[in-house]
């Protein structure tokens, strides 16, 4: 993984000093709250219902065991002993004191971490495929260009006060595990006809109030020209994006209003200028960053691995876990383990400091010291030898994170909702917990098959409900929490936006309604191999509407 050089350290340290000084000026009153808010947001510091919340960036979802331990220690020392992993590969602390933030930032800087631009109307944390570097289907490790974008976008003098927030996601594979078409800019590593590697650029996707699947704006940009192209994309947006209405300020609205072709034309017109500005990366620097993502020293292991085959045969629960939680590794004899942060009845994405320490230890012992964060709020041990999988599974069981449910109905995304968030209209976590209890039976989960439930507590859609096979949106109806159901969303390479089924359900009825939807699917699927989303795309919303609301 990328390792800071002295210049990265210098900038990070200077940022800690700058923000510490800004906090001091706020506490003395030199800065008003109106002036300080954009500054603190650009440092990931929100005011939520109970306290300040600090959002720490985990660039492209990659962590070292040392960093995981630091995150755990911060949770224990400055928060209430836990953290929450988010859909944008960040970690959030919920009980932070403003006066301690400078200290926390200094602790983070000591392990090459920061909270830069994790909120505010600027370029946010770049997210990527959690299986970057280990997936057999990728053309190139997406973290290379992600790190290049991270550096370019950090304290960008021109793009720190955009009309609205701006999110990048990168995939190195045709199979999209980073939901790139739901981002302001989605980047896919591609090869052109000449066999050269470059990037396809999608612009103007997003969730929120107006969900949009991003159109392809540029099919191919050469490796060393991407930054100037992105700078042109951003400049057109910065100049012409709407600033009069925050709900229409995202780039998706500009691209929609101009039309993708006209937007692309304006970017092309701007591109020579940004290219002349010298922002593009030199081949030597590209190679320097690339070298950090070279494959680690894998052992040569012949498959099948006998002990692994035996363990699967002997222990059914382990075999089930392997089936859902272990992803094929590009190197024979290895697997990539997804650690489910979705224990039955648990809070999606939450981990205590003790759990984080245990995971850091597992990473050191079994995964070459590396951990990943997924946009589904789980963690990954990317490099586990098949012979070690049984031991890893046992240890994960001891800390409550061995649920064999990845990709299944209880692997639920939920935003913090009204339990924590000052923007929320309804609670998300209790709905996730009740659904998880309802579908707890693992055999039934396997019968149901791949099914993603995603829950947001407000229209901002941090819980990605638009992209859920079953999406749940919490709304406030005359002071009461209500939940709307959407069906048919998907966040992968077949990206689609869910369709609202009908009127919402009260908190006590939503779980039963989802159960009905699932049962309807089980009744109408043509074969056990036809997944929920396939069946929905075949039959449409009508049978589900009828089961929930009766025939009209």
């Amino acid at each position, binding site marked *: 993984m990328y390792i800071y*050089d002295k210049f990265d350290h210098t900038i990070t340290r200077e940022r800690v000093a700058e923000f510490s000084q*800004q906090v001091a000026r706020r506490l003395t009153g030199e800065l008003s709250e109106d002036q300080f808010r*954009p*500054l603190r947001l650009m440092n990931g510091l929100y005011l939520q219902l109970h306290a300040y919340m600090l959002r720490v960036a985990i660039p492209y979802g990659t962590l070292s065991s040392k960093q995981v331990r630091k995150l755990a220690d911060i949770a224990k020392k400055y928060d209430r002993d836990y953290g929450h992993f988010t859909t944008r590969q960040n970690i959030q602390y919920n009980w932070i004191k403003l006066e301690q933030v400078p200290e926390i930032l200094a602790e983070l800087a000591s392990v090459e971490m920061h909270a830069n631009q994790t909120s505010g109307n600027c370029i946010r944390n770049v997210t990527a495929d959690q299986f970057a570097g280990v997936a057999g289907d990728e053309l190139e490790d997406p973290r290379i260009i992600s790190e290049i974008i991270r550096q370019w976008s950090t304290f960008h003098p021109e793009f720190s006060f955009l009309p609205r927030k701006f999110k990048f996601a990168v995939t190195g594979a045709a199979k999209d595990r980073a939901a790139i078409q739901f981002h302001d800019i989605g980047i896919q590593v591609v090869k052109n006809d000449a066999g050269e590697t470059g990037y396809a650029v999608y612009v103007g996707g997003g969730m929120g109030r107006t969900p949009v699947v991003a159109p392809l704006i540029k099919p191919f940009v050469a490796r060393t020209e991407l930054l100037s192209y992105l700078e042109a994309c951003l400049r057109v947006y910065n100049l012409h994006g709407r600033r009069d209405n925050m709900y229409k300020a995202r780039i998706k609205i500009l691209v929609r209003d101009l039309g993708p072709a006209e937007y692309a034309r304006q970017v092309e017109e701007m591109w020579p200028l940004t290219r002349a500005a010298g922002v593009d990366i030199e081949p*030597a620097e590209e190679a320097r960053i690339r070298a950090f993502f070279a494959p680690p020293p894998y052992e040569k292991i012949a498959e099948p691995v006998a002990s692994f085959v035996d363990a699967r045969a002997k222990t059914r629960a382990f075999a089930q876990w392997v089936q859902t939680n272990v992803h094929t590794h590009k190197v024979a004899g290895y697997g990539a383990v997804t650690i489910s942060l979705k224990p039955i009845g648990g809070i999606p994405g939450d981990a205590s400091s003790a759990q984080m320490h245990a995971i850091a230890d597992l990473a050191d012992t079994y995964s070459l010291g590396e951990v990943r964060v997924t946009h589904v709020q789980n963690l990954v041990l990317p490099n586990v030898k098949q012979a070690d999988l049984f031991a890893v599974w046992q240890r994960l069981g001891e800390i409550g994170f061995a649920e064999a449910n990845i990709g299944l109905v209880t692997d639920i995304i939920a935003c913090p909702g009204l339990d924590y968030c000052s923007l929320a209209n309804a609670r998300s976590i209790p709905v996730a917990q009740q659904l998880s209890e309802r579908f707890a039976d693992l055999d039934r989960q396997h019968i149901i098959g791949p099914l993603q439930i995603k829950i947001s507590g407000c229209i901002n859609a941090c819980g990605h409900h638009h992209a859920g096979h079953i999406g749940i949106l919490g709304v406030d109806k005359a002071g009461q929490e209500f939940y709307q159901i959407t069906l048919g969303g998907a966040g992968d390479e077949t990206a689609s936006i869910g369709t609202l089924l009908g009127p919402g359900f009260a908190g006590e009825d939503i779980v039963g309604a989802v159960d009905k939807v699932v049962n309807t699917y089980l009744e109408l699927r043509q074969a056990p191999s036809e997944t929920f989303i396939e069946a929905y795309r075949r039959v449409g919303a009508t049978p589900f509407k009828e089961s929930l609301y009766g025939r009209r």
Partner: protein
Amino acid sequence: MAVVDRNGPIADKWTRLADDAPVPRAASVIVSFARLKNEHNSLFSTAAGVGVEIAGDVNLKELEPFLPRLGVIVVRFATMRDGRVFSIGRLLREQYRYSADMRAVGDFIPDQALFLLRCGFTSFEVAENFPLASFKQSLAAYSTWYQRATDRATTVRDLRRENAPSGSKS
């Protein structure tokens, strides 16, 4: 109102001219863009210096013919979140090759000044109670940057190139 540049307060020869005020001889005046468009002949022949104030919605192509004769361009922040100002600065410098004074005015805070300098601004019109100490402190916050901008300040990539072991330069 006071005017500062990166080194602190500076003497300001410019005065604002209301749209209906007569053009004084031998004075340097800042006028609205509307007036500049309507009266550029008399303005440039009468005043000692001419500057213009523009806002984020400006069409720079319309401004282009006047650029060589302008002594200052004042760009106004509608609110401190009006990030268009930064792009306008870069375009004026990098596309239109404007080279005289470029000044930010409006509701910005000291912490934004550093980015304005990076985008080609050279001075700031500020309230009398502008916190100069914080301004100077914030200008000194960073010794280097990740990306090249209008100011051509030394970037991390420049430093890495200089630092690279000899023979590995490309």
